[in-house]
């Protein structure tokens, strides 16, 4: 890759927080490092991965709104977790997690357990149980 060919396809994915250091050759054929704000094929690959996640979150959000699943299921998907990972973060066994996916069981949980979930998702208990947020938020 030539120095002047280092792509600068910024699509906001890096939020201005980071630029990739790329290795490229200058006019004399020597290697130099050049900063890049992104590259279209890479951005496309990132978008693809996120679309898949967003789809899952949206399906779960709908299920929570109609009362099929609890808020726990929504936040699990939103944090790209599965039962195994959530169990590791909270120390609550998978068998119990599955039960807590049921909205009625979830409502009956005491603060101590809710605290563990909120901690795992880095949110407050209020956010964890407030279903009205889901109606607006995507």
């Amino acid at each position: 890759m030539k120095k002047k060919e280092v792509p600068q396809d910024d699509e906001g994915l890096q939020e201005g927080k980071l630029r990739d250091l790329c290795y490229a050759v200058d006019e004399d054929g020597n290697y130099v490092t050049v900063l890049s704000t992104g590259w279209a094929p890479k951005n496309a690959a990132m978008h693809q991965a996120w679309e898949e996640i967003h789809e899952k979150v949206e399906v779960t959000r709908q299920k929570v709104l109609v009362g099929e699943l609890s808020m726990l299921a929504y936040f699990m998907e939103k944090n790209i977790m599965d039962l195994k990972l959530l169990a590791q973060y909270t120390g609550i066994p998978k068998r119990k997690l599955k039960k807590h996916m049921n909205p009625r069981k979830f409502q009956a949980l005491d603060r101590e357990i809710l605290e563990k979930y909120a901690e795992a998702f880095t949110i407050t208990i209020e956010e964890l149980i407030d279903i009205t947020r889901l109606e607006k938020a995507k």
Partner: protein
Amino acid sequence: MSERNNDINIDFKHHHAAHCENGVTSNLLKNHNINLSEAMVFGIGSGIFFSYMPFIKLNGLPVISFRPYPGMIFNRVCRRLGIMIQRYKFPKDPDKAMDTLDATIAQGIPCGCLVGVFHLTYFPDPYRFHFNAHNIIVYGRQGDEYLISDPIIESPVRLTYKDLKRVRYAKGTFPPKGRMYYMADIPENYDLQKAIVSGIKKTSREMLTIPIPLFGVKGIRYLARRMKKWPQRLGDRKASHYLGQVVRMLEEIGTGGAGFRFMYAAFLQEAAKELKQDWLNDCSRQMTEAGDRWREFAIIAGRIFKGRNDKDESYLAAAEILLDIAEREEKIYRQLKKIKQS
């Protein structure tokens, strides 16, 4: 806890790098007055590699990697330069992990830490996946905040006590368990030429002769053969996600472009100068060409994600490029295999 009362600021210079592990290694070395670039560290650590393991899945996608197992580059560089590493891990004791870190930086020693990316507050959101083999350097503390050198970020950053503890105890695949390390004993003399030659030999051996066809040049050919059948075997959607995985591994996680191929070409140029062997410059040029072919592959893949091409034909074209890359890279490693110290 008493150690947390005083601020600590080790005189440490942060250098931006493409990849975290090379960057941490290079930055720690520079701090000990061993001035080696990221590319040099990458080459000595035999950082270039290829593996395709379709039987092991991460989030339902096959594992593809352009580098060796995490930690290998750091270990090999230290071994080849004769540096002693002090390592810790604290599987069940986060408080002790933080106390030991405090005590270490209080002695003026910058400390490498293994962390998970998902909860890194200074990372852009789209990059925050559950990936647990990220390396950062802690070089000080001000009040509740730690001074952090994350090699893939342009400038130094900070993390609070709570946030640092959280990322050091990320969960999931390959949990860091509070792992930390530092360079404990630096030799006065080291043989850079010998280290370079060992690094190159190991690379050519691994890319050419691992008898399992999932690794090295054989791995690239294996991926190409499988890729031709992806659209029929997996259906359009899944096939496109498999391809997305290849491109993300190739470009996303700080490879410096083309799955480290350009970084390795930069290393070969430095090696040519250091060893005074001009033929390595020629290898560097060939490696740049191979890297350019990897980029062409990514462009075709990018068109497939966006549905702009005739699908079946594109997968065949992408796979053909991979076969050509395997051919080119094999030629390079066969030349490199013959390297000797001048």
